[in-house]
């Protein structure tokens, strides 16, 4: 286990999440991709915390996790409403407005 490998994993998660945003076709999985990116960011924070040996990063990550959960709950609700009406929820389901 090295700091480098942790940063590598963090970067891979961030990049993979971003890729997932463009690869996955469902709104739900697009949203989940953002969560992977967030996990990458959290891992980076904790790695820095390990280097600095500080408790603050733990607190930050805990808050970020809570915030993310709250965000996801609301976003998921919004998607669920679309699903309820449209039977599916890809990005094409919500592309009425443009231009």
């Amino acid at each position: 286990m090295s700091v480098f490998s942790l940063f590598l994993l963090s970067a891979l998660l961030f990049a993979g999440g971003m890729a997932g945003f463009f690869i996955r076709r469902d709104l739900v999985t697009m949203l989940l991709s953002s969560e992977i990116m967030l996990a990458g960011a959290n891992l980076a924070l904790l790695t820095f915390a390990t280097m600095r040996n500080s408790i603050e990063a733990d607190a930050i990550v805990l808050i970020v996790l809570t915030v993310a959960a709250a965000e996801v709950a609301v976003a998921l609700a919004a998607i669920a409403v679309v699903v309820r009406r449209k039977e599916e929820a890809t990005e094409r389901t919500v592309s009425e407005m443009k231009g």
Partner: protein
Amino acid sequence: MWNFIYWILFVLSLAGLGVFLFCRREDRAVASLALTFASLGGIFALMGHAFLGTILVMLYAGAVIVGFIVVVWLIVGKSGEGKSLVTISSIVFLAVAFEVIVLLSWKKAPFKSISFSTAELGVFFMKDYLYLFELTSLLILTAVVSSLVILRRRK
């Protein structure tokens, strides 16, 4: 030994990500992410942040993923594939429950000299981060109200 476990978790988390990215079925993609988050929780614990690892696993691999699966089920379930989803989510749930128990009884921090206890974290929250702690509760309240408002049907 710990190093070996770390690298296994490392590979597993990336494998979960890979399946998520390239699997065609939405439900399996989501379920595979549970693997990623579970391994990440393990890595957190190895780094000495066992509590956060627990939270991550409970929150993501548990609640969030199951929530996602439910929504996916709403979509896919209508085409008659509901059964496999129920199976998948039960497996994920059991696995998560097991991991949480393991992490909660975790005492060691193999890659770190000093480890913080959960109590210290609590003190930090009550002293230094009190404002943020309160703000987070405001956020959760807002999120609850928001979700309810969004999900409410038209009168």
